[in-house]
């Protein structure tokens, strides 16, 4: 009986790509002389598990700790307390850090400050080159990665002339070419216009659905979380609430208290509810809203 249970839990463990156990992180604030003045706890006892193949969104306003946590996910920062396992690798294991970063790629906020090459295909090749992949294999991977993000025609272009959304897609391709199991995106759309944002979100949804890529998206834009499998909302370095999109978004009061926007569909439902209309709050897109309201009207 014991053996069966152990095997069962071990199997479960394999399915978890991220395991955060009581992770805390302290920032030291130094004064002019260099001595530590105060310590600021940026993360407090973060407990979470992310399953392979899931599309997870970590929401929070600026300063909630979400970016700090993101940097822990590929060992750019190490926990002050607690342990973080990425793909079963302890982030503090210095010898396996490159293995960790290969399996968990990261895309950052500023499209320009991620790219080092002057030609798109060279940029996408950078990752595989660092991994020591053979030349012909790199050519193949670059081609494949650019197809995945739908930027194949731009292979010989200079990144300078691309739009923000296109640049971020190249950044994603650069990570995809390393064949990771998970892609972490730290506010990838914060500097983009609405059409660029859509390009990026469509691309990561495609990666998650077609390639079963585990996606962890850190953002403060609620609309990007509508199709997530699970959401964690962070506030003051802690996980304030978690759940499926419909659960999270319909708690309008909590969202507002945490200075987060809900999609206008949810807010409209909420306001109508305040006016006595019997309408559920978990309506996340325009089509659903139109349908629901029409049904209501017909009933009257």
């Amino acid at each position: 009986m014991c053996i069966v249970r152990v095997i069962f839990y071990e199997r479960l463990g394999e399915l978890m790509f991220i395991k955060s156990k009581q992770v805390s992180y302290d920032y030291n604030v130094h004064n002019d002389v260099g001595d530590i003045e105060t310590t600021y706890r940026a993360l407090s006892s973060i407990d979470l598990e992310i399953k392979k193949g899931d599309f997870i969104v970590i929401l929070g306003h600026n300063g909630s700790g979400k970016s700090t946590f993101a940097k822990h996910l590929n060992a750019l920062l190490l926990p002050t307390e607690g342990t973080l396992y990425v793909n079963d690798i302890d982030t503090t294991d210095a010898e396996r850090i490159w293995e960790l970063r290969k399996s968990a790629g990261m895309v950052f906020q500023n499209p320009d400050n991620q790219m080092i090459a002057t030609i798109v295909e060279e940029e996408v090749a950078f990752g595989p080159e660092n991994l020591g992949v053979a030349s012909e294999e790199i050519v193949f991977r670059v081609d494949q990665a650019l197809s995945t993000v739908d930027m194949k025609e731009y292979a010989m272009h200079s990144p300078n002339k691309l739009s923000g959304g296109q640049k971020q897609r190249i950044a994603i391709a650069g990570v995809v070419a390393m064949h990771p199991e998970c892609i972490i995106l730290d506010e990838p759309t914060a500097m983009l216009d609405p059409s660029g944002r859509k390009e990026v979100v469509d691309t990561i949804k495609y990666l998650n659905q077609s390639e079963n890529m585990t996606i962890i998206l850190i953002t403060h834009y609620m609309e990007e979380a509508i199709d997530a499998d699970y959401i964690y909302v962070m506030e003051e370095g802690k996980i304030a609430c978690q759940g499926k999109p419909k659960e999270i978004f319909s708690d309008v009061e909590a969202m507002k208290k945490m200075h987060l926007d809900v999609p206008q569909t949810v807010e409209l439902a909420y306001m109508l509810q305040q006016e006595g209309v019997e309408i559920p709050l978990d309506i996340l897109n325009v089509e659903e809203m139109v349908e629901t309201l029409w049904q209501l009207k017909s009933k009257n």
Partner: protein
Amino acid sequence: MIRDITIGQYYPIESKIHTLDPRTKLAMTFGFIISLFFGTNLLIYLIAATALAIVIKVSKVPFKYMVKGLKSIMILIVFTVIINIFMTQGDPIFTWRFLTITREGLVLAFSMAVRLILLIIGSSILTLTTSPIDLTDAIERLLKPFERIRVPAHEIAMMMTIALRFIPILLEETDKIMKAQMARGADFETGGLIKKAKSLVPLLVPLFISAFRRADELALAMEARCYRGGKGRTRMKSLAYQRQDAIMYGLIIGYLLIMVGIGIVL
């Protein structure tokens, strides 16, 4: 709009010169430049100029791009010519008041002018027919053997690549910051030297800070993609010599031998 400026004035077109390995072109340029100093014989300059003209023709780059580089140093050429004509000692040919023109002076001036012009045009062909990335690759490959004596070939090449990538971005940022400060009444144009230098502070400080921030973020992004220096790195595209490069190296050697010969004999 500043991002449209191509660095190094690379002129992309299909030509036999363009498809040569960049290392070959570096060797050609180097060989050509040193050959100019094998003597002051007219024949040397004629042969050099002819070789140059042939290469220009084969490269299919319009001639006007070659002379673009000359325009900026025209003053230097004129200045050098004048100095050499009037200041060289030797057989006087022509005297007027305190100015003397000597035969040696004329020869020297002519030599210098011709050398400078051929040198500039020769270097221009290199940058016109070779993209900056290829040049960087060539330099990295040529420096690689020196890694044994601690020359950081890979790091140098990486620095050059990143510089090439960010020059247009930093130029555009300079423009933005300038405009933002001008919108607050900053004046970069009027005033003496000291005032102008002071007025650059609101431009340079944000620019430097931005550059450091970019460097920070770029380093994180590179590490996130497993960059850890040149060790163990492969390349997607390696420079590979082809038959045409071997032929060209042969031509370079032949050319140099001829030039050395002439220089010694005449």
